[in-house]
């Protein structure tokens, strides 16, 4: 080895040594030790004894673990599906060259930069029995007659206009924006007249009944408090995913849309026939990020504390923590490690699937 090369190697080692040391201790060693602990009866203070796969066998029979696993999987699937779809739809709407669009994108990004702790505290207030969400729902249901009138009149006016234009031989789409503006104005005026004359009136606001977080019922097999956390997660993650989609949309040539428009494809057809297929690689990335992120969700559950009953919101990540620090049998490190490895395995499966399908940056 040349002297110069040896010096460079020496310096390179010096440069990277702190990082390698950190990586080895806090990630490599920690990972290996978790695998080892999962095969022992390690508690917080004892010396571990090898017990084979007993911890895993215990987990399969532990009701709470199965509940956590079930919640985690349901949570991951529901949140990923909903937020991916909504983020894509929003990105498609926002993919316009308009003045001020950067301002709006910045504004939408705000919920995702804030700490999960602060956002969760606000969310718990939001979901209280007399919190803002129930206020909003009560308001909407009280004003439902007026809102429904408005919607109905809008559709009616739009239908009449589109029919009229078509009878004149103009090929307008049912979603024609210019006509929709007129329809909206007409509907607003008519609704105002109807409510001013007292023909359509709001109902009195009702007292709230649904206490989201202390509810013990389930909806579609998922406890209502967990639905509340799902809503929170979707709300804070959509902006990030939307920005990734927007970055992907920049690469879809505008000419494709123009060609489709000339061929008479309406915006909805354009969305499903052009946007969705062209964005497949980005969608795949978003889904992977989303699956991993939701699978490891911890903060929101931990911050809920006693606002919701543990069995209604427990997920894998919290199960692990709970077994080390909060359990009745304190410091069940062996079982916690085994559960954590189940979580890791699920994560690896998702990452592996992504690599296996060979979706990488080269695809687009």
């Amino acid at each position, binding site marked *: 080895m040349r002297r110069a*090369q040896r*010096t*460079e*190697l020496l*310096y*390179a*080692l010096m*440069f*990277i040594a*702190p*990082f390698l040391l950190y*990586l080895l*201790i806090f*990630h490599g060693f*920690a990972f290996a*030790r*978790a695998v080892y*602990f999962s095969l022992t009866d390690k508690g917080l203070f004892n010396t571990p004894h090898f017990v084979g796969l007993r911890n895993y066998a215990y987990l399969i029979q532990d009701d709470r673990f199965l509940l956590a696993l079930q919640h985690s999987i349901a949570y991951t699937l529901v949140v990923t599906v909903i937020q991916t779809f909504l983020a894509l739809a*929003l990105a498609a709407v926002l993919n*316009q060259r*308009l003045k*001020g669009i950067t301002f*709006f994108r910045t*504004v939408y*990004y*705000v*919920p995702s*930069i*804030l*700490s*999960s*702790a602060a956002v969760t*505290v*606000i969310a*718990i*207030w939001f979901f209280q029995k007399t919190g803002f969400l129930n*206020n909003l729902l*009560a308001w909407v249901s009280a004003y439902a007659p007026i809102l429904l009138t408005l919607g109905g009149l809008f559709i009616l006016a739009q239908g009449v206009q589109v029919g009229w234009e078509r009878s004149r*031989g*103009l*090929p307008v789409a049912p979603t*024609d*924006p*210019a006509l*929709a503006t007129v329809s909206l104005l007409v509907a607003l005026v008519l609704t105002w007249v109807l409510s001013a004359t007292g023909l359509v009136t709001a109902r009195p*606001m009702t007292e709230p009944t649904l206490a989201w977080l202390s509810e013990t019922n389930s909806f579609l097999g998922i406890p209502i408090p967990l639905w509340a956390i799902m809503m929170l997660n979707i*709300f804070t993650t959509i902006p*990030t995913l939307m*920005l*990734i989609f927007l*970055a992907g949309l920049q690469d879809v040539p505008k000419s494709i849309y123009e060609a489709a428009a000339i061929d008479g494809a309406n915006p909805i057809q354009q969305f499903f026939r052009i946007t969705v297929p062209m964005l497949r690689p980005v969608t795949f990335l978003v889904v992977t990020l989303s699956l991993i992120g939701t699978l490891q969700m*911890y*903060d929101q559950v931990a*911050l809920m*504390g006693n*606002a919701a009953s543990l069995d209604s919101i427990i997920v894998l990540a919290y199960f692990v*923590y709970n077994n*080390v*620090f909060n359990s009745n049998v304190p410091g069940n490190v062996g079982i916690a490690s085994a559960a954590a490895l189940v979580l890791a395995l699920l994560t690896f499966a998702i990452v592996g699937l992504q690599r296996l399908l060979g979706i990488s*940056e080269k695809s687009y």
Partner: protein
Amino acid sequence: MATQTISPKRTLDERFLARQRWARAGWVYGTMLALAVLFIGPFYVAFLGSLKDNPLEYPFRYTFPQIMPHNWAEAWRLGELGAGNPWLGGFKPGAQVPFEVSYFVPEGTEPVSPSVTVPTRRAGAGIGAVLEEVQASQYAKVSPVAEAGRSPAVLDGQQGQIVRYRFTITYPGTGPTAPRLPLDVEAPLSQRFYSATLDPNRLERRGRVASWDSATPGFFGYTFRNYVRVFNEARNPNTGQSLFLRWIFNSFVVSLSAVLINLVFASLAGYALARMYLPGKNLIFGAIILLLAVPAQVTFISNYLVLRDLNLLGMIWGLVIWIGIDMARVFLMKQFFENIPREIEEAALIDGANPLVTFFRVILPMATPALGALTILTFQGVWNEFFKAQVVLAAQQDSYTLPLGLSFFRNAYGQVGDWGLMLASAFLSMIPVVILFVVFQRYFVEGVSTSALKG
């Protein structure tokens, strides 16, 4: 086909399309505005809630005493009168505070002067309840209540009159300064509270009793009362030090230390991986890719034990060490260094400078944009870190960072439903990141879209 039928009417067609473009832009802006309301609205209403005396009131009011400008002016003036402090108010010796209340008296009843008391109130709910504070009730003297005028009025369809009463609260002699001057004004059964110099914090017993947390609040003490309480009510029982101030300090120390560590070591490691002769680079990459996918829930047990062996549990330095050097930041720096021209460092090396000098004198100054992004992303990430902080610091209240402090507040005040304080603390904890975001939004937004696509 369709285009053929209308092609003769060329000008009409053009106008039709132009109109359509305008209308579409209008709908898009409308949608964007609606979405902005959707994403920001919850924070706006929660902020309103954080100013209220009762954030859980039903139905939710969008206007309430704390956001009325006339109350701001009065709170300022009263704070000045009570303690010479228009911001935070108080009650100090020599103070003379004139106060006026008015009651609606229905027809046929003779007005009776309300009784005015300065009650003794505890500092607050939750952990604040154990605090001893100077009570204004021990020093305040209330002058006799005098009638100041009557005017006929109709209230809720009921005939009657509005009667105004005046009294003065004084602090004769000497004594300590009280942080606030609680006030209760109670009228006989038939009379209803109508108005006062300063809108009361609570109305009880069907509007007969009006109650103020402080009659001399000052501007912050009235409008941002919950925010002031966050600092004042949660204190270390032994030292009397404000816990929230301490947590802010801890959060800054942890975040800035992590930024500094990542600035130096992540860029050093990134440079070594990008440019230097180092066998086994691929092995390191492989390890990073694998370990990046390992959830923190797997590694935290061992890390907790390591920090325990080092006696670093409950200390913010333990948290700083665990947060350490972020693998994603090393990647960021590596990618940046791969894109700078080789000639520059070669020139420096030929000049005889050793790699360390070259790195700090030549390479690092060129990396300012990447270092900027690294600083901001690291600060934001660490400022918001909850899980690691909980594992390391849970046992030591004085060492909490803000997210952990919020969780502590949630448990301490959630029982008594003191949402004003909890919401206020949540908003206070957001301020640094929001400022950072407003100033450096480019880094955040671009960071997300590009790093995610490259990942």
